[in-house]
């Protein structure tokens, strides 16, 4: 849809935010036409950079007055088009709201603005022995506000829980422009737990302007282990067996051969290139008893035919191992010009089946699929390699993705574990939920966002707003 710059909108935004707080030039707007889900693009009419909740409220009121849609955006790392400005309008960029208002170590919370970068928060806390536990792979760029919007995960959420488990309260500018606080540092809300539904609502309930986050003590001791496997089956069976043995590792991540090749070329860790799969297995906690737990994990790997299993030799090696994992997507750029990452979830015992299924899909559609994922949660991230200039490949990629996600549903799982529905997975909502389920969710949305002006056309296939974008094409995302 053509981004119509309405003069009154821009003029009044400038008077609210100053000329430095508003972007309207087409060349600059191009940056904001998509997030990390690059297949769907649409330019906002204008990007506004508020620095206070009051400014956000004023922008929202202006949008209401002029009947313009608006959408909040953090760092734009969404892999599902969560910040796509469907229907244009005002993009409220929160990257300049990055103050840390309070850090209270005694009561283990901090109050931060949404634009604070995840890793910067953790780095601020680390010297005091604490961290912000959600650690998505994008944590070097993604914001706490964006993490809250998508209820982001990460490797260590297996033990420590996803973002919502670490958000105690929020201040939110509602779509009518009012500022409301839900929850708070004490963590026991009086009445409905609105914080719990605002987190993960993908920005469809309003614009969060302040977040009370829980601080988690750093584990006193960590053991990181590396398992090299000759077969994918051995690796996935090891994963299932570790969970079934009642061990909750801090992280349990799998990298398959395709990804291994790229990661090794990029970081020279020393992975054997003929290995079919690598598992990163981490246990943490008290020093006492930790070696025994690590040994149990390694013993399970041995029982399932691991070629080699050992502990990281040093902190430096441990750090490099995690770098390989967290920057794996970046390394894949070496293998193909375009990547499509999926975010399916299956019960953990179904992982061996899913990996077999993906091999079949690979053959059927003549595509190459790499796998790097949060195995302990059953959260798979198949990465399909292709060339987006080839229309036939794009078609095959989309069909293959659909088959994989449909199989996740058939296995009793979900189509998104941590990236969100955004615009990318709208088509899957009716497969996961009945019309009555979806209607119930839309009724809830109506309590927050009755006019549908805030983040229109997200999460629900029928979520109103002036939809005028192409069929939600699933993800060419890095």
């Amino acid at each position, binding site marked *: 849809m053509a981004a119509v710059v309405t003069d009154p909108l821009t003029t009044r935004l400038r008077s609210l935010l100053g000329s430095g707080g508003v972007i309207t030039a087409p060349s600059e707007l191009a940056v904001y036409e998509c997030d990390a889900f690059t297949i769907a693009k649409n330019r906002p009419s204008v990007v506004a950079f508020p620095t206070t909740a009051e400014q956000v409220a004023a922008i929202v009121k202006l949008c209401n007055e002029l009947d313009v849609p608006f959408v909040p955006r953090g760092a734009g790392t969404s892999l599902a088009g969560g910040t796509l400005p469907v229907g244009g309008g005002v993009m409220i960029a929160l990257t300049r709201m990055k103050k840390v208002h309070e850090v209270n170590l005694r009561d283990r919370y901090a109050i931060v603005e949404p634009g604070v970068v995840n890793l910067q928060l953790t780095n601020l806390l680390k010297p005091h022995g604490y961290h912000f536990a959600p650690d998505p792979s994008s944590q070097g760029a993604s914001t706490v506000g964006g993490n809250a919007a998508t209820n982001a995960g990460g490797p260590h959420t297996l033990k420590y829980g996803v973002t919502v488990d670490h958000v105690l309260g929020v201040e939110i500018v509602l779509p009518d422009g009012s500022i409301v606080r839900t929850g708070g*540092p*004490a963590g*026991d809300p009086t009445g409905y737990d609105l914080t719990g539904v605002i987190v993960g609502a993908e920005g469809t309930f309003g614009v969060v302007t302040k977040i009370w986050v829980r601080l988690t003590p750093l584990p006193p001791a960590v053991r990181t282990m590396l398992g090299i496997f000759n077969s994918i089956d051995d690796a996935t069976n090891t994963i299932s067996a570790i969970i079934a043995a009642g061990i909750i590792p801090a992280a349990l991540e799998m990298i398959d051969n395709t990804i291994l090749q790229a990661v090794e070329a990029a970081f020279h860790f020393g992975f054997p290139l003929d290995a079919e799969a690598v598992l990163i297995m981490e246990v943490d*906690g008290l020093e006492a008893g930790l070696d025994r*737990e690590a040994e149990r994990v390694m013993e399970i790997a041995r029982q399932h035919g691991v070629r080699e299993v050992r502990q990281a030799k040093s902190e430096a090696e441990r750090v490099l191992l995690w770098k390989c994992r967290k920057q794996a997507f970046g390394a894949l750029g070496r293998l193909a010009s375009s990547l499509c990452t999926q975010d399916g979830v299956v019960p*953990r015992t179904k992982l061996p089946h899913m990996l077999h299924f993906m091999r079949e899909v690979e053959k059927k559609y003549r595509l190459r699929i790499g796998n790097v994922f949060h195995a302990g949660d059953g959260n798979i991230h198949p990465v399909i390699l292709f060339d987006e200039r080839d229309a036939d490949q794009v078609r095959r990629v989309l069909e293959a993705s659909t088959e994989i996600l449909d199989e996740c549903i058939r296995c009793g*799982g979900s189509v998104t574990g941590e990236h969100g529905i955004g615009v990318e*997975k709208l088509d899957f909502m009716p497969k996961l939920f009945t019309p009555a389920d979806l209607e*119930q969710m839309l009724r809830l949305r109506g309590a*927050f966002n009755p006019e549908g002006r805030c983040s229109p056309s997200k999460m629900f296939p029928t979520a109103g707003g002036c939809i005028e974008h192409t069929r939600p094409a699933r993800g060419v995302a890095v």
Partner: protein
Amino acid sequence: MEQSETITIDGVGPMPVVRPATAAEVADVVRRCAADGTAVYPVGGGTMLDYGLPPARPGVAVELRALDRVIDFPARDMTITVEAGITVARLAEITRAEGLHLPIDVPDPDRATLGGAIACNVSGPRRYGYGTFRDYVLGITTINDRGELVSAGGRVVKNVAGYDLMKLHTGALGTLGVITQVTLRLRPVAEYEGRIEFTCYDTDSMVQALEVLHSSETKPAMIWAEIGRGDHIAKRWWTVRIRYETNKDAVEWQLEQIQKELTAAGVKYSGVEFARSPDAGVRPGQRSSDLKFVFGTGLRPSGLASISHWGWNNEAVLSIWGSGYVWGSYHITDPGRWNESIVTESQAKTILSELTDMAAEYDGNVIIKRCPPEWKKSLPVWGRPPADLALQKAVKRALDPNNIFNPGRFVTDAF
């Protein structure tokens, strides 16, 4: 079990009781009630019937205990899907057989149903180490105000598809629908448990012990301090219980370490007792059948010191969970033993007013958990209105516009 035909909820009644056997039958009942605006009062084991304000109008009590089936228990995935009427004790029995558990302490587990516990967001002293229902409900099915079966979430441990209605129903007191089925995340039962229990004869020492625990190198699963009373030389004292749940090496190390830390900090404590696996547990047991005045508040942990002193000085029976939750109670009739205090309605009012101010300094709100129904006309049952009250009311209006679920009882009805 005796099946009475009527029930009185918090002084309102008698109301007819229906006992549907399936979710479809629940839906049918709700549909019929919705058609003529009859109020629906979901009932589980009936252990918390006097929680909240009295019903606004008579209606139909829908008892869910017949919905007690296990739908799916993939133990190796550490999840379970059950109907909401299952008792907490039965659920524990089933999961423990597979070495798993839901680590939330629910009083009266033989009677309390899972759905009721979720609706009341019941928690116990192990919330320090394990959290609350908010952290365990992965999927939920409810009957909505139109008598439709609606679900959210799913059966896997990580899932962000759709709105998190699990959070919304947890603690909603059944005001947004009747919970008929839930999927829970389970935890492995710890390989080994160890508990240390000791006595502090003054509040300063107990508070000092809590501070030591806060910065301890040990990782307690439970911190629980209670004012004890008796007919001994000391009429009152604090009992502090700390529990560790992990493996044997770590538990033994922690039991040693915490004593070192307490001693190093100069905490005066005595009467140390230990208990070890297989079940070293002291869990909150039966809910007293005595009619009492009971209140609770969740606050920032740094507020526990002030509240502990307040409770001691005001002769409350106080129970403190280390995560920052405080329970207090008084008798309202003479229990005929020891030296327990009795309060009248007007004294209760004064107590609440003092305590509410104090809790507010630490972001807490004092809620009445139990009191005689007639007191509820003058006491602030839900404490102070939350900052997001208008939004809460909007949510209630959106999901139950005709106010058929538990009318009159919740926070949104109080202000």
